[in-house]
C-alpha cells in the first residue's frame, strides 16, 4: 500500500512544518515526563473541523516517520468516515503505509476505543480528545481546575461518582471514566468506554492524547499505573453483555448494539472490526480444513 516516495507537492512531510512538529514533540516529551499532566501547546488549524480529531492528527503528524505503518479507528471501526479520511490524509501527505490490522501498525490513531488485541512496546496509541479536563463538569473555571491539579485537590471527582450511586444505585458513568495516572494526576481517558480503562493500566505501548480545540497534549508512558476512581464499597466494574458477538462469537470484546429493522430486531457485534474480522477468518479457515 505504498505508492511512491515523494509526498504531495507543496506540502511538508506529514502536513505540518518542521518547526511546528518540533514544538509538538517538545510538548509530548513534557507530557511523557509528567504522566497525566495536560501540557498546553500551540495547536494549528488543520484541514478538518474541531471535534473530528484535530488534536490526534497533530500528535500523529509529529510522531510519524516514513517507515511507520498507520492504523486509524473510529469507535473501533477502520471503515467509518473519520477513520478513512484521516488514514487517507496521512497516506497523501506523508506517504506512509496504512493498515487495518492492529498487529501490523506502529502508530494507531483512535477515536473512542482501544483495540481488543493487546498492544506492544513497538506501538504508539494516539487518542483524539474532545475535552481533556476531567474536572470540567464540577468546576467551570480553568484557573481553578489548574490549581486543583497542582494541589492534588480531587475531592470533587468522587462527588460526581457519589451522585451516580445515590441516584442510580451504581456508578453509571460508562465512558470517559476518570482515572488516576501514576498515583498523581486525575486524567480524562477521552470518551473510551470504561470497558477499555483496564487496558490502559501498565500498557506496554506509549499512549498520547491530543485535544485540538482545547490545545492540550497529555501522555501515559509505557507500563504506567492507571487506576479508575471508585469507592471501597462500590468498586470499579466494566460493562458486560448477555450476548456473544453475532458475527464471530466473542464473549470478551466490547459489543455494539445494531438495530436491524423497524420490528425491534437487533444484533450485537464487536465494535473492533479488525478483531472481529480476524476471528471470522480464522473460523472460516478451520471450517475449510
Amino acid at each position: 500500500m505504498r505508492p511512491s516516495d515523494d509526498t504531495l507537492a507543496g506540502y511538508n512531510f506529514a502536513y505540518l512544518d518542521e518547526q511546528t512538529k518540533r514544538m509538538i514533540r517538545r510538548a509530548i516529551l513534557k507530557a511523557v515526563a509528567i504522566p497525566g499532566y495536560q501540557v498546553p501547546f500551540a495547536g494549528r488549524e488543520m484541514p478538518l473541523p474541531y471535534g473530528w480529531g484535530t488534536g490526534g492528527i497533530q500528535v500523529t503528524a509529529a510522531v510519524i516517520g516514513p517507515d511507520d505503518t498507520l492504523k486509524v479507528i473510529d469507535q473501533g471501526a477502520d471503515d467509518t468516515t473519520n477513520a478513512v479520511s484521516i488514514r487517507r490524509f496521512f497516506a497523501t501527505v506523508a506517504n506512509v503505509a496504512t493498515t487495518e490490522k492492529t498487529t501490523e501498525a506502529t502508530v494507531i490513531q483512535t477515536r473512542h476505543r482501544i483495540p481488543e488485541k493487546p498492544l506492544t512496546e513497538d506501538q504508539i496509541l494516539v487518542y483524539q480528545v474532545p475535552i481533556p479536563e476531567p474536572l470540567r463538569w464540577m468546576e467551570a473555571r480553568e484557573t481553578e481546575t489548574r490549581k486543583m491539579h497542582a494541589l492534588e485537590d480531587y475531592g470533587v471527582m468522587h462527588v460526581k461518582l457519589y451522585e451516580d450511586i445515590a441516584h442510580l444505585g451504581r456508578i453509571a458513568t460508562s465512558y470517559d471514566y476518570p482515572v488516576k495516572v501514576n498515583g498523581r494526576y486525575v486524567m480524562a481517558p477521552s470518551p473510551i468506554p470504561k470497558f477499555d480503562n483496564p487496558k490502559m493500566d501498565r500498557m506496554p505501548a506509549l499512549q498520547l492524547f491530543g485535544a485540538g480545540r482545547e490545545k492540550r497534549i497529555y501522555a501515559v508512558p509505557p507500563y504506567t499505573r492507571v487506576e479508575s476512581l471508585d469507592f471501597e464499597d462500590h468498586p470499579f466494574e466494566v460493562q458486560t453483555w448477555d450476548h456473544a458477538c453475532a458475527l464471530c462469537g466473542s464473549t470478551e470484546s466490547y459489543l455494539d448494539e445494531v438495530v436491524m429493522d423497524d420490528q425491534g430486531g437487533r444484533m450485537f457485534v464487536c465494535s473492533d472490526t479488525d478483531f472481529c474480522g480476524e476471528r471470522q477468518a480464522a473460523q472460516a479457515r478451520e471450517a475449510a480444513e
Partner: protein
Amino acid sequence: MMPFDLNTERPLLRVDGLARHYGDRIGCTDVSFDLWPGEVLGIVGESGSGKTTLLNTLSARLEPTAGRIEYRTRDGEVVDVYGLSEPRRRLLMRTEWGIVHQNPRDGLRMAVSAGANIGERLMAVGARHYGGIRAQAIDWMGRVEIKEERVDDLPRTFSGGMQQRLQIARNLVTGPRLVFMDEPTGGLDVSVQARLLDLLRTLVGQMGLSVVLVTHDLAVARLLAHRLMVMKDGRVVEQGLTDQVLDDPHHPYTQLLVSSVLQV
C-alpha cells in the same frame, strides 16, 4: 451561654495589625485581636464598614496589605496563615476551618445532592467508602434538622433556611476548630432565624467551636457572641464583652448603633 476554656494558655488565632487596602481606599485597617478556643467573636457594624473584607482577610481568601495572622493548629504548631504554602493553606481550610457564607449559593454546590454536598469535604480528605460517607451525611442532616429523606434532593429544592442549615452541616462534617460566618441568618424570616440561632448555639457548645461571626444584627450578636468588635470605616472603634458593649456602649458610634435597634 457555654463558657469557653480559660485554662488554655494560648489563643487559637492571633491577629496583629491587619490591614487590607483597595488602592487608596481602606477596606479595613489596624485590626488586632486574639481569639481563644471555644470563643465566639462577633464583628458588628453598618454595611460598608469593612466587616466582610476583614472576614475574608481572616479566612485566607483575601491577601492582607499589612499585618499578620497566626493560627495554632490541632498539633499545637503555630503557623503564619499567609506564610503557608498554598497546599497547606487549602488543607487547613478543609480540615480545621469552615466558612459559612451569607448566601448559601456561594457555599453549596447547587447541582449536586444534599448528601454529596455534605460528603464533599470527607471525600476531599480521603474518605472512599460510599456507605460510610452517606451515613455521616445522614447523621449530619439530622443534626441540622433536615429530614433524612431529602438526602438525595438538590439544594435548590430546599427553602432558604434549609439551605443555610445544609451549608452549616457541610462545613462541620469534618469537625473543624474554627468557623467563619458571614451573616448566617441574613435573609431569613424571624422564626426560622430563631431556630437557626438555637441550632448554632447548640453546635458551637457541643463541638467547642471557635467562631468569627460577622453580622449587622445586634440581636444575633447578643445571642451568639461572647465578645464583640464594633467596626466603622474600616477601623475597630470599640471591643469588649458582648453584654458590656451592648449595655454600656462607650464610643459615640456604638451608642448610635445600639440606640438604632428597633424595639418591638
